[in-house]
C-alpha cells in the first residue's frame, strides 16, 4: 500500500517533470546551503584547531602591560585624582613609556610561582628575542632570527630535535655560546652532509660577529597558515641560544612575558589560566602602572570556536529560512496540483477511495518531491563543502548525522507543507469534485 502509493506519486511527478523540478529547487537550495555550511564550518574548525594546537595548547602566557588610565583611576581614585605629581604618572599618561626592570617578571617570581602551583606547572619557558642575523661561511649563508630561550622552552613548543640536544641548565649557568639550529640552516651551511654537531658557526649581526657552537638540530616546519613572501633560501629560521647568554650586558634582566607550560586537559587549563591571572594580579596589586595579562591558547581557541560557532549558527539560520521558503513552494505547487486534479480526486472517491487514501497520496507526493530535492541538495552541498575544504586545506568531513538528518528533515518539510493541500484534497466533496470543470 505504501510502496504502491510511492510508485503512484513518482508516476504523477514524472508526468510533470519540469514543475516537480522547479518545486524541488527551493528544497535543493536550502539543503545544499545547510550541508555546505556544516561541512565548511567543520573543516574550518578542524583547520583552526590543528593550526593553533601546533603552537601548544598547554601554554599559558603571562605578559606585563601598562595598566590603563581607567583601571588605574578607578582602582585607586584618591591617588589618581589628588596625589602629588609623580614620575610614574607622567610616564603612565604617555604612550612610549617603558617598564622598569623591577616592573617585569623576575626569576625569583618564577620560582615562587613554581612553588605555588607544583601540580599544575610542567615548566616555565622564557624567551628573549634578540633580532635577525645572518649565518655566513664564505659564499654560503642562512638567515636566522636569534632567540634566547631556557631549557623549558622545549616543553612549550612542539619542536622536533633531529640531532644532538636542546639547550640545558649547564649552558644557561655558564652563559655558553651554544646554539640549536634548524635542519634548513644545516642544509645551507653544510651542504655536503658533514655532521653539524660541535661545529662552529659565524653569526653576523648588524655591528658584530658572534661565534656559536651547534649543540642540536631541530626540524624546521612551516605552518599552513603562514604565507611566505621571500624565496626559499632566504627564509629565516630560528636560532636558539641560552637566554642567559642573550641577556649578557643587557639593561633588562627580567622578562616582560613568560610562558607557563601547564598540565591537564583543556578545561583544567582554562581554569588554571584564570587562577594565574588572579595570582599575578595579587603580585602586581601595588604596582600602579604595570600589570599582568594571562592568556592561553585554550582560552583563545575557545573564544575563536565561540565566534566560529555563532557564525555557523547564523548562516545555518539563513539556510533554514531558504528551506522554509522551499517548503512553502512545495505547498504552493501541491495546492495547484490539487486544484488541477479535482476531477481525478472526485473519480477516485467515486471508485471507493477514503479520505485517508487521498490525503496519503498527496502527502506522499510532497514528501517525495522534497525528499528527492533533499538528496540532490546533499550531493551538491557535500560537493561544495568538499571543494571549499580542499581550498582551505582542511580535512573533508562528511557528517552522516547531518546528512541523514537533512533527508529526514526535508521529507518532514514535505509532509508538513504537503499536509494542508492533501487534507484539502481529502475533504473535497465527491460530487463537487466530479462536477468541477
Amino acid at each position, binding site marked *: 500500500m505504501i510502496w504502491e502509493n510511492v510508485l503512484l506519486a513518482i508516476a*504523477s511527478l514524472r508526468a510533470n517533470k519540469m514543475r516537480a523540478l522547479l518545486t524541488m529547487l527551493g528544497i535543493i537550495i536550502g539543503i545544499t546551503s545547510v550541508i555546505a555550511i556544516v561541512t565548511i564550518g567543520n573543516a574550518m574548525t578542524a583547520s583552526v584547531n590543528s593550526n593553533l594546537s601546533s603552537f601548544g595548547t598547554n601554554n599559558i602566557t603571562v605578559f606585563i602591560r601598562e595598566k590603563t588610565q581607567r583601571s588605574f583611576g578607578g582602582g585607586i581614585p584618591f591617588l589618581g585624582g589628588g596625589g602629588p605629581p609623580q614620575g610614574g604618572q607622567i610616564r603612565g599618561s604617555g604612550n612610549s613609556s617603558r617598564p622598569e626592570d623591577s616592573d617585569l617578571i623576575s626569576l625569583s617570581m618564577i620560582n615562587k610561582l613554581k612553588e605555588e602551583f607544583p601540580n599544575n606547572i610542567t615548566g616555565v619557558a622564557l624567551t628573549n628575542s634578540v633580532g635577525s642575523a645572518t649565518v655566513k661561511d664564505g659564499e654560503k649563508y642562512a638567515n636566522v632570527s636569534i632567540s634566547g630561550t631556557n631549557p623549558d622552552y622545549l616543553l612549550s613548543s612542539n619542536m622536533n630535535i633531529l640531532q644532538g640536544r636542546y639547550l640545558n641548565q649547564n649552558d644557561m649557568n655558564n652563559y655558553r655560546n651554544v646554539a640549536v639550529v634548524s635542519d634548513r640552516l644545516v642544509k645551507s651551511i653544510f651542504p655536503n652532509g658533514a655532521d653539524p654537531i660541535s661545529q662552529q658557526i659565524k653569526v653576523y649581526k648588524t655591528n658584530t660577529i658572534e661565534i656559536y657552537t651547534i649543540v642540536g638540530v631541530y626540524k624546521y616546519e612551516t605552518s599552513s597558515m603562514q604565507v611566505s613572501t621571500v624565496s626559499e633560501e632566504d627564509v629565516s629560521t630560528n636560532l636558539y641560544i641560552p637566554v642567559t647568554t642573550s641577556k649578557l650586558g643587557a639593561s633588562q634582566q627580567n622578562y616582560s612575558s613568560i610562558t607557563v607550560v601547564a598540565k591537564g586537559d583543556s578545561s583544567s587549563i582554562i581554569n588554571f589560566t584564570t587562577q594565574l591571572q588572579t595570582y599575578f594580579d595579587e603580585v602586581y596589586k601595588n604596582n600602579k602602572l604595570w600589570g599582568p595579562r594571562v592568556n592561553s591558547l585554550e582560552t583563545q581557541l575557545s573564544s575563536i570556536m565561540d565566534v566560529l560557532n555563532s557564525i555557523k549558527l547564523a548562516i545555518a539560520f539563513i539556510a533554514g529560512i531558504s528551506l522554509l521558503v522551499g517548503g512553502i513552494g512545495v505547498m504552493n505547487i501541491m495546492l495547484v496540483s490539487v486544484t488541477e486534479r479535482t476531477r481525478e480526486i472526485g473519480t477516485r*472517491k467515486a471508485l471507493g*477511495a*477514503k479520505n485517508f487514501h487521498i490525503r496519503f497520496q498527496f502527502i506522499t507526493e510532497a514528501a517525495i518531491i522534497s525528499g528527492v530535492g533533499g538528496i540532490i541538495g546533499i550531493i551538491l552541498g557535500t560537493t561544495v563543502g568538499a571543494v571549499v575544504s580542499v581550498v582551505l586545506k582542511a580535512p573533508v568531513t562528511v557528517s552522516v548525522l547531518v546528512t541523514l538528518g537533512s533527508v529526514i528533515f526535508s521529507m518532514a518539510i514535505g509532509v508538513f507543507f504537503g499536509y494542508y493541500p492533501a487534507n484539502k484534497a481529502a475533504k473535497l466533496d465527491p460530487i463537487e469534485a466530479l462536477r468541477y470543470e
Partner: protein
Amino acid sequence: MIEISNLIKKYYVGMPNELTILKDISLSIQEGQFISVVGASGSGKSTLMNIIGALDRPTSGTYVLDGIPIQEMTENELSEVRNKKIGFVFQTFNLIPRTTALNNVELPLFYMGVGKSERRKKAEELLELVGMGDRMTHMPNELSGGQKQRVAIARALANDPAIILADEPTGALDSQTGKLVMDIFLKIHREEHRTIVLITHNPELAEQTERIVTLSDGRIIGDRLNHSQKTEVGVRA
C-alpha cells in the same frame, strides 16, 4: 435491492434561493434488472444517480441498499459502499490521466486492499471482456472515446459491484460507438445478471432495457416494463 421512498433532495437548504431538485421520489429496483432513466436535461437524473451511487445523501426520505440504510452513513462508510457495491460509468469517462488502462481498472481493487498480482489478473480479464485486451498498457490520451468508455466499464466491474450506474455513457460518443458500448452493457447484463441503471437521452437505447423510468422536473412521471426488449436481445444473441 434498491428501495427509495419519499426521497427529497434540496440545494441551498434554508436559504432564500432554496432549490428542490428531487421531489418525493419513490422507486424500487430488483436485483438483476436493467433499468433506464430518461428525462429532459435538468430533470434531476444525475442527482438521483449520485444518491443511488452513495456519492450524495438525500435531504429527506430513505434509501435502503441491500437492506442497509444509506442516509445514515458516514463519509468513510459511503466510500466503502461505493467501493464494494457500485460501479460508476460517466459520460466523460473520468479515467485517471497518465495512468494506464490496466492501472485504471485496478484502482477500485487497490482501494479495496486487494494484492498486486490478483488485481492485475482481474484487470486483465475485465479488459479482455470489454474487448480492450490489446490496449492494456495504453494511457487514456492514447485511446478513442469508445475505447476509454470500455476501459471505464471494465473499471466499474472490477469489484464485482451489485449495481452498475451509467450516467449518459454514450453521450459523448457517436451513435455507432454508442451502440458498441450499449452492446457491452447488454452483454454484462445477460451474462453476469448485474443490476444496471442507465441514464440516457436516447430513446433507442432506453428501448433496449427492461424497464424505463421517466423523470420530469424532479418527479417520476412514467415507469413501465419494456417487453419488446427481450426479443431484441434474443435477436442479437
